[in-house]
């Protein structure tokens, strides 16, 4: 039981990071029909932006402050890269959604390769507060502190995003645009600005996801490939949750995170099945698509 509770907690934390990665993807797809492969690059660059700024701080900076700087840098970095991507590469191809998809694939490959060439595969370590590496006792259950951070970030972003989408005019434009982009513009609304905005929001969340993934799950090691690894699971979450649905992404992210953790622990003990958790998420995707091709919360087409 103790093990099960620990696993559940870790799975929820993983799900929180998946949600951060997936919700932006889902919004971008819902509004613009773009399957954004460059999202992996947003995540990776966010983490690198955090690392870069942290290494330029004076050595005497308190570790909590360093981490705060990293978070801000990751969010800003992800948002900035996403903004440039939308303006420079996506906008000129407006009306050609699949050319846009191909461009995002190309961008992701090119940028990841540049990072590999510049920094190597696995050489950088992200400074995090020592507290992250410790654990909190809850009864007999040990809960890693870093997981709390991931979980809190996921919940905060979910709440803020829901507020933004329900209460602000831009949020209403985005939700309406996911339903019927054409009719939104026929009401005199510049949908192009909404496109840029979802990219920026998606990029900001992706940057945060990339940083937290490094701080919580990779032993603080940065890799240029981490974003693309995360991207596969973000895709799986988005499709299971239903393209364009934030709540769907949230539910699916938790399901996928838990499934992966349980499967890894209970199935991975058998020799040759150490990655059964990864495999199980793909099988879940296939199953969901067979039973309900539009995903759990997807709109009917």
């Amino acid at each position, binding site marked *: 039981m103790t093990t099960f509770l620990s696993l559940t907690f870790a799975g929820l934390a993983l799900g929180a990071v998946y949600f951060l990665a997936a919700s932006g993807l889902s919004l971008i797809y819902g509004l613009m029909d773009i399957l954004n492969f460059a999202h992996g690059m947003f995540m990776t660059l966010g983490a690198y932006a955090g690392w870069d700024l942290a290494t330029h701080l004076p050595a005497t900076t308190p570790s909590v402050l360093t981490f705060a700087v990293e978070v801000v840098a990751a969010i800003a970095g992800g948002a900035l890269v996403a903004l440039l991507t939308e303006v420079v590469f996506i906008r000129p191809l407006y009306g050609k959604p699949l050319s846009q998809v191909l461009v995002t694939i190309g961008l992701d490959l090119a940028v990841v390769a540049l990072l590999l060439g510049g920094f190597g595969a696995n050489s950088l370590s992200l400074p995090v507060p020592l507290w992250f590496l410790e654990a909190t006792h809850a009864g007999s259950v040990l809960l890693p502190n870093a997981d709390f951070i991931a979980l809190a970030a996921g919940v905060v972003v979910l709440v803020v995003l829901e507020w933004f989408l329900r209460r602000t005019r831009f949020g209403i434009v985005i939700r*309406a645009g996911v*339903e*019927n982009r*054409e*009719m*939104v*513009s026929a*009401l*005199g*609304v510049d949908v192009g600005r909404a496109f840029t905005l979802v990219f920026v929001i998606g990029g900001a969340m992706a940057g945060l996801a990339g940083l937290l993934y490094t701080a919580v799950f990779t032993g603080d090691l940065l890799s240029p490939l981490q974003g693309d690894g995360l991207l596969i699971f973000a895709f799986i979450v988005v499709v299971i949750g239903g393209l364009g649905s934030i709540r769907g992404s949230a539910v699916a992210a938790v399901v996928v995170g838990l499934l992966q953790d349980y499967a890894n622990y209970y199935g991975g003990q058998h020799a040759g099945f150490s990655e059964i958790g990864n495999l199980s998420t793909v099988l879940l995707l296939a199953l969901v698509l067979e039973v309900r091709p539009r995903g759990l919360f997807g709109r009917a087409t």
Partner: protein
Amino acid sequence: MTYAIELEDVHVSLGGSHVLQGVSFRVPTGGVTALLGRNGVGKTTTLRAIMGLAPHTGTVRVLAHDTRGLAVHRVARLGVGYVPEDRDVFAGLTVAENLRLAERVEVPAYDDAFALFPDLADRLRQRAGSLSGGQQQMLAIARVLLNRWPLLVVDEPSKGLAPKLVGEVADALSRVATTSTVLLVEQNLAVVRRLAERVVVLDHGRVVHQGPVGDLDDADLARQLLGVAAAP
């Protein structure tokens, strides 16, 4: 005479079929002009070309502005309210959100909208998708009244509505028409007779008749043009 809409030699091809083949007509400022024709002759496509939603060649002038090169939202901001066919409201948004989305002026005329459609005022928090067909139609019209724009383009507002609701929608449009120019696509000839001053008839992607609404009284002409008996 000034014109709210002018079309000159407008062509539209959709998926390989030549839907509009040189449509030219003008909608004078003020009152209701009805765009008529059988199913599939290109009425909706004509409205979409006016809004910039259908790629076209030829010239479209809206409120004296050439729309060439204008994005759809820029055309709308010239002062055009568009009520699409099939009551295209945003089903996942509430009534209030649907209305808020359409606001383009500092002080939106909610009073006007709610005076015409008091039902909506009571249902502001309801999801538009859960409204009845008639209520959705009212929302689609109310949405474009908020800005008191000079021109409304309305696509088949009576389609699929119960007779009583058709009357209500027609009442509303006739009041709107006292302050705005309306271009109306409508199959229900009783509604057309009641609202419209002028008619433009399309067939096979071309304008085949223009004139005062009284022309429809000639039953032979009406049958020939529209393929329906025009008796009231």
